[in-house]
């Protein structure tokens, strides 16, 4: 039996005559050996190389296996220390990974949490534990199985029998399957409820219920905080004190509902200024504050103040009414928080007061001078309180002359305050103060009674004129007050004249006219004081027939020199004549003024020319003014 290859080699080495070509044969055999050797070498080389390569790969595998083991232990530690339960399922819904917290939430034993556990079996185990039961369990299992194949993430909150609430988030994985995280949110939900409750409570404590702005408490806190921050950051803080002009009249004339509408709308506009550096709040009534942090320059503040005044002046719709109001603003600045919040508030208030007294619809920055004046005013207010009990007030009487006869026809009672330390305090300083503090009522009542009591003692029939403040009209029953004074003194009502100013009509004019009519019925006459200086609407002249119009001193001063003043005076005199009303000019100091007025047809006059206000009236024999004098 010869090897096939050898047979072939022998066959290929035959010569034509059939004999063996030994050289050719050797060549073929040699080639075959060479082939074999080359094959062996090649095989050896590749086997060596493969084993080297495999060894290298093996080493890499070992390294990565140990790295993986280490990473796995980190991963394990990480997921076991998570506060959430975690479960990872493959696309066949078999568990790949879960953590201790997961078992804990559902009361499962760690040994039950085997890799490869089917989702349905796991849900079964949870059901067995009585974590949920009955229909709920079936529904829950069905819903979980549904979510397991859903390709969108989803969230559910499941309440367990033990009261625990578990938030479950299903996150599908790219490789199929899903991851679910399970968080015990029982406490979170409870504290959310608590926070909501607290937030509601905080709203009540800090929010002005009518306007939604920060209320008095909150804005005060904001101011304190702003000043403190200013101190820390060396930044300036400004406070705007805003008051609506004539707001009380809106409430009185249109009702509180309209007043509320105005407050709500103005608050909305004011809140438009709020930003990270500006906080708006309502102090109460029609008073508002704006706290401004990080003030860069006063021009900006001035701009804000202008805008506030402008926004207040835009019409406000309140039901059927369109209301136009204005606002006054007082501004105080605390440099680097050096002024405390209470000083700042006081200063802004003073500036506001000044702005209002300068005609309202205006803004003013606080100046130290204002502070001195305010202090003075506070001091006066304090003294004023005890002035009546301490009998510090007295009345001076200034005569009023009839131009035709030259006779004294009456006296105007003028109140004077003689303070033991301050001396004689001018009326301009304390009347307004008394009006502001409300003491004017008590004072007015005292003036009325004192004047009546004195007038009754006069030998002649001169009238006595008593000034009544608009505040008195508002707060007191004037008719009753007058009746009492007349009753007490026994003065003939025809000898009493009440001087009122136009501003009394800002209130409900029909009420005022009722009072006038009552007084008129009593026989008391009514003079309109300071005529020509106020808003001089002639409408109330048609509603009520005044007994006397009194031309203000300011027109008399320049009469004969100032064309306009002269014209106004002539007009008033003409008006009086047409209304058949006595016209009296006050502040007459020169004969020239006297003559001019007399020629113009003015009925009566009052002034230094005829006599200064004196504590006692003149003797009878001197009670006549002669043109020749």
């Amino acid at each position, binding site marked *: 039996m010869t090897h*096939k*290859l050898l047979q*072939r*080699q022998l066959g290929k080495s035959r010569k034509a005559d059939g004999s063996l070509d030994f050289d050719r044969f050797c060549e*073929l055999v040699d*080639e*075959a050996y060479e*082939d074999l050797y080359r*094959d062996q070498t*090649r*095989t050896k*080389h*590749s086997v060596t*190389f*493969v084993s080297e*390569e*495999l060894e290298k*790969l093996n080493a890499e595998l070992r390294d990565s296996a140990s790295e993986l083991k280490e990473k796995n232990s980190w991963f394990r530690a990480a997921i076991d220390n998570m506060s959430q339960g975690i479960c990872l399922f493959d696309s066949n819904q078999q568990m790949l990974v879960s953590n201790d917290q997961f078992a804990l939430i559902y009361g499962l034993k760690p040994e039950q949490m085997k890799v490869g556990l089917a989702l349905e079996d796991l849900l079964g185990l949870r059901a067995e534990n009585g974590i949920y039961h009955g229909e709920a369990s079936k529904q829950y299992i069905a819903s979980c199985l549904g979510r397991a194949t859903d390709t969108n993430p989803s969230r559910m909150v499941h309440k367990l029998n033990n009261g625990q609430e578990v938030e479950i988030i299903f996150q599908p994985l790219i490789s199929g399957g899903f991851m679910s995280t399970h968080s015990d949110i029982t406490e979170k939900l409870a504290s959310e409820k608590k926070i909501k409750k607290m937030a509601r409570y905080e709203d009540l404590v800090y929010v002005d219920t009518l306007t939604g702005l920060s209320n008095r408490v909150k804005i005060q806190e904001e101011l304190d905080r702003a000043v403190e921050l200013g101190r820390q950051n060396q930044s300036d803080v400004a406070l705007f004190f805003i008051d609506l002009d004539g707001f009380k009249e809106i409430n009185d004339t249109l009702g509180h509902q309209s007043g509320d509408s105005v407050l709500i709308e103005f608050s909305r506009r004011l809140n438009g200024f709020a930003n990270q550096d500006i906080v708006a709040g309502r102090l109460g009534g029609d008073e508002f504050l704006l706290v401004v942090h990080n003030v860069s320059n006063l021009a900006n503040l001035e701009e804000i103040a202008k805008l506030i005044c402008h926004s207040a002046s835009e019409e406000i719709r309140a039901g059927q009414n369109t209301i136009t109001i204005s606002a006054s603003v007082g501004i105080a600045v605390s440099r680097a928080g050096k002024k405390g919040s209470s000083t700042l508030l006081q200063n802004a208030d003073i500036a506001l007061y000044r702005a209002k007294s300068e005609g309202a619809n205006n803004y003013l920055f606080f100046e130290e001078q204002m502070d001195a004046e305010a202090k003075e005013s506070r001091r006066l207010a304090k003294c004023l309180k005890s002035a009546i009990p301490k009998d510090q007030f007295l009345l001076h009487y200034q005569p009023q002359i009839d131009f035709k006869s030259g006779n004294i026809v009456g006296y105007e009672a003028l109140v004077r305050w003689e303070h033991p330390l301050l001396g004689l305090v001018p009326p301009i300083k304390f009347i307004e103060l008394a009006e502001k503090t409300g003491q004017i009522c008590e004072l007015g009542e005292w003036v009325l009674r004192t004047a009546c009591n004195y007038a009754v003692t006069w030998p002649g029939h001169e009238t006595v004129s008593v000034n009544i403040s608009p505040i008195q009209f508002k707060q007191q029953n004037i008719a009753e007050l007058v009746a009492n004074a007349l009753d007490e003194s026994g003065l003939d009502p025809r000898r009493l004249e009440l001087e009122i100013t136009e501003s009394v009509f800002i209130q409900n004019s029909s009420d005022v006219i009722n009072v006038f009519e009552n007084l008129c019925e009593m026989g008391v006459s009514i003079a309109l004081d300071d005529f020509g200086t106020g808003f001089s609407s002639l409408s109330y002249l048609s509603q009520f027939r005044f007994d006397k119009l009194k031309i203000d001193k300011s027109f008399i001063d320049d009469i004969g020199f100032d064309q306009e003043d002269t014209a106004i005076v002539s007009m008033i005199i003409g008006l009086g004549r047409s209304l058949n009303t006595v016209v009296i000019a006050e502040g007459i100091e020169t004969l020239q003024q006297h003559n001019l007025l007399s020629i113009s047809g003015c009925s009566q006059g009052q002034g230094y020319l005829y006599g200064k206000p004196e504590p006692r009236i003149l003797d009878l024999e001197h009670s006549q003014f002669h043109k020749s004098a």
Partner: protein
Amino acid sequence: MEVGIATCDTSRQELDTSKFVHDPDLVIYFGNGDFLTHGVAQINKFAPEAVVLGCTSGGQIQNDTSIESQFSAASIKFSSTRVKAAKCEIRDSQSSKAAGQEIGRQLASEDLACVIIISDGLATNGSELASGISAELGPNTVVVGGLAGDGDRFEKTLVGFGDDLQTNMVVAVGLYGKDLNVSHGSRGGWQTFGPKRLVTRSQDNILYELDGHPVLDLYEKYLGDDAAGLPSTALLFPLQIVDPDVPGSEVVRTILNIDREKKSLIFAGNIPHGWVAQFMNASHHNLIEGATMAAKDAAKERSDGELAILISCIGRKLVMNQRAEEEVEVVSDILNGIPQIGFYSYGELCPSEKGGKTRLHNQTMTITVLSEKV
């Protein structure tokens, strides 16, 4: 069906046409060397009416030998089967699919039983050619064939149609009729070895990287001293590639060329990105066992074949050298000594299983057995 096979070895300068059948319908030839042009002229002169096609090769196979003959040709006369030839230009590997489709369109007919296709061995992407022709033809047509060879030189392959011999050409003959029986088998016998590697960079039939490393570096390391013989020595280590998502999708790929600059290898078929590749090697014994299996597959249905066309990969011949004849012998033994003709190719085309689509194979012994019902 009558078959006559003529050869011309190095000692002779004439083809012995007396071995041919009279007035053949089809002559298929394979050859190389200086004699080629003369041999083709001789055939055309002998059988001017016949469809004549063939190609250059890496060695011829005739009957039970694979001696280094210059030329071998089979003349076939069918009793009822009709033949029709087709040809098409194949400019480059990118035009392979279109060429396959064109051939398919030229030959398509309801009774087309078999197509034997031969294409340029260096310009063709065999996978695309197979996919192109399969797309045009129905499942009842068996497409077999191979890519022309150029010994172990990989420089220039020619494909013949009539008396024309050209590069960049694909030719085919369609065999029509219900009397033709076709069976086939295709096996390699190679075994995978070493680590599996991921195809990380490739484009069509060009492979750049395995596991992120340049593939040429890897081949050079494995080949050692044999690296000097690249690209042909790369045939010693063919690649098995498999789509990791499709079990059973294993195919074997051999190298046609290398690009030293780009450190890439050019294969006879596609190397898809993301597939898994593994080196293969073989002993003589394994390869002969592969050929045995292929023959048994081809003979499974019928034992009365009349002609066997053997297309074996050049890589097998490189490994087996003198023993290459053994695989031809074992096939002949199994097929009862019926006439055999064939060549060593740069790629084999054949369905993987009966009724399947034609695919490119590499490193296989691919056998097609033809017969006509009497």
